[in-house]
């Protein structure tokens, strides 16, 4: 029998996994987003509004929130096409802070005081979503569209010149990522049954990025490893309690120095595929 304590941790892993996947999807096109907590916040508030105020069932509310956030992601994705690298990172950072600031002033849902009244969801429910989306990403990774994403990341000009519509591909990735982050937000709200704007700050976006970079930035499963690492490692290394962030910061730098692609990478998977077919 699992203790409630562990159940809480595993729920955190599932939610972080979804947030990390949302960063991973944008990273697949070669762009780093430092504002995905913003999409998560949109998802959290919208889902909570739908379930608490409108009485919509949670699953439907999550789907609606994902669609709405995805649409916002697409709308933001178009101007974002003009920006690259650091500039896009700064713009997404600004977007995240704008969303946080918006909810801080959104008195209809509590403003700085936060919003509550959500019904607690089970661990199984959270992981059904997390596993389904991880599986979806894993399937997409073997599809034509993912190859196109990688081509766009590597060389946009060459990609366009073999007929790839780079605009649609990048904007689509942004929208998909925004939808996934919104689901993370909706689940977060119904796990903690209380949300406030501070839950969706820059630090949250950074957690997503950390999970992806540590776990492996070239395969979706890396987000799972990263999320487990970020949540579980401090629990098992109690002496780390006060220093866990310093340790993660150090790990991040060390990882960039010795293994930039993160713990898992594509060649590792290729190796296993080779073994299987041999």
């Amino acid at each position, binding site marked *: 029998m699992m203790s409630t304590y562990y159940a809480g941790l595993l729920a955190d892993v599932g939610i972080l996994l979804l947030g990390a996947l949302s960063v991973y999807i944008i990273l697949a096109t070669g762009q780093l987003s430092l504002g995905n907590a913003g999409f998560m916040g949109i998802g959290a508030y919208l889902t909570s509004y739908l379930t608490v105020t409108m009485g919509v069932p949670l699953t439907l509310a999550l789907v609606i929130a994902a669609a709405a956030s995805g649409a916002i992601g697409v709308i933001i994705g178009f101007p974002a096409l003009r920006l690259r690298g650091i*500039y896009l*990172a700064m713009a997404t950072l600004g977007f995240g802070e704008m969303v946080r*600031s918006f909810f801080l002033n959104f008195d209809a849902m509590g403003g700085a005081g936060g919003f509550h009244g959500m019904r607690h969801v089970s661990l199984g429910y959270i992981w059904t979503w997390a596993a389904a989306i991880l599986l979806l990403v894993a399937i997409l990774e073997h599809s034509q569209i993912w190859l196109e994403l990688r081509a766009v990341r590597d060389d946009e000009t060459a990609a366009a010149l073999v007929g790839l519509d780079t605009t649609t591909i990048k904007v689509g990735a942004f929208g998909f990522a925004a939808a996934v982050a919104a689901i993370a937000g909706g689940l977060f709200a119904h796990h903690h049954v209380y949300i406030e704007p501070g839950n969706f700050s820059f630090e949250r976006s950074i957690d997503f*990025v950390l999970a992806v970079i540590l776990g492996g930035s070239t395969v979706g499963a890396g987000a799972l490893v990263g999320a487990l690492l970020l949540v579980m490692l401090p629990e098992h290394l109690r002496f780390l309690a006060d220093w866990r962030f*310093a340790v993660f910061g150090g790990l991040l730098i060390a990882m960039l120095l010795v293994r930039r692609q993160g713990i898992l990478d594509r060649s590792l998977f290729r190796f296993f595929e080779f073994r299987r077919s041999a």
Partner: protein
Amino acid sequence: MLLQQLVNGLTLGAVYTLIALSFSLVMGILGVLNLAIAELFMLGGYFGFAAILAKLPLPVALLAGMAGAALVAAVIERVGYQPFRDAPVVTPMLSTLGFSIILQNVATNIWGSDPLQLPDEVFGARFTLGPVSASAMQLTIVGATVVLVALLAFVVQRTALGRALRAVAENRDVARLLGVSAGPLTLLAFMLSGALAGAAGVLIGLHYAAITPYIGVEIGLKAIAVMVVGGTGRIWGALIAGPLIGVAEVMTTAYGGSQIRDFVVYGLMIVILLLRPQGLLGGARTEQGPRV
């Protein structure tokens, strides 16, 4: 009332200017966003506080904050930038993020997460000129900022060192061909940038008479916006953008509602990134067409 807000806004703007200059020194010269500057700023504040609490005079406290932050910046340059100088631009940004996380954690463990307060008797005096009153602290902050900016301007514009830095900023490859060795220069750029952030930290600590380990993220992120509004490629844009945003912020707080100010500042940053990446006052765009 309006004039009073202007004075308050300029004080805040002075601090923004310093941190934004700190960001844009590294960004303008090396094209790298050093996210750890936010924490260098916070550390500078703590170093300065330690000096003031040890009854050292203010200029010494300022120097302590600058030197401490510059030393940490040197470590960041060696470990977090040098190994990645040929990597995609996002990689060194991530490694400086690593430092940012470490430094904030270290500060929390050393000084605790509660605000550290300055005793009241430090800088209690106020000066009044007609309807406007400024505390000695505000005058000190603006004065110190003016001196530091003048010093930086002298170093960058008038010295051989500054010329070399500008050459690297102009074109790294050409600078290398001309025999300007970039290694020591990037170290120097990081340290100068760290010193500015450290000074800003001491000054903001004086301004609020308190400091916390989280002040870096709050004000540092804002300073990134200030840098962008001033223009990322140019160092001096921050001189206009800093006071502008400082005043705008104080004004919206006074007449609008304190919370919409962040929304406005970051909104402005995004608009500038999209429409005028060269900054509010920048010259012609230098972006080239697709290179094939």
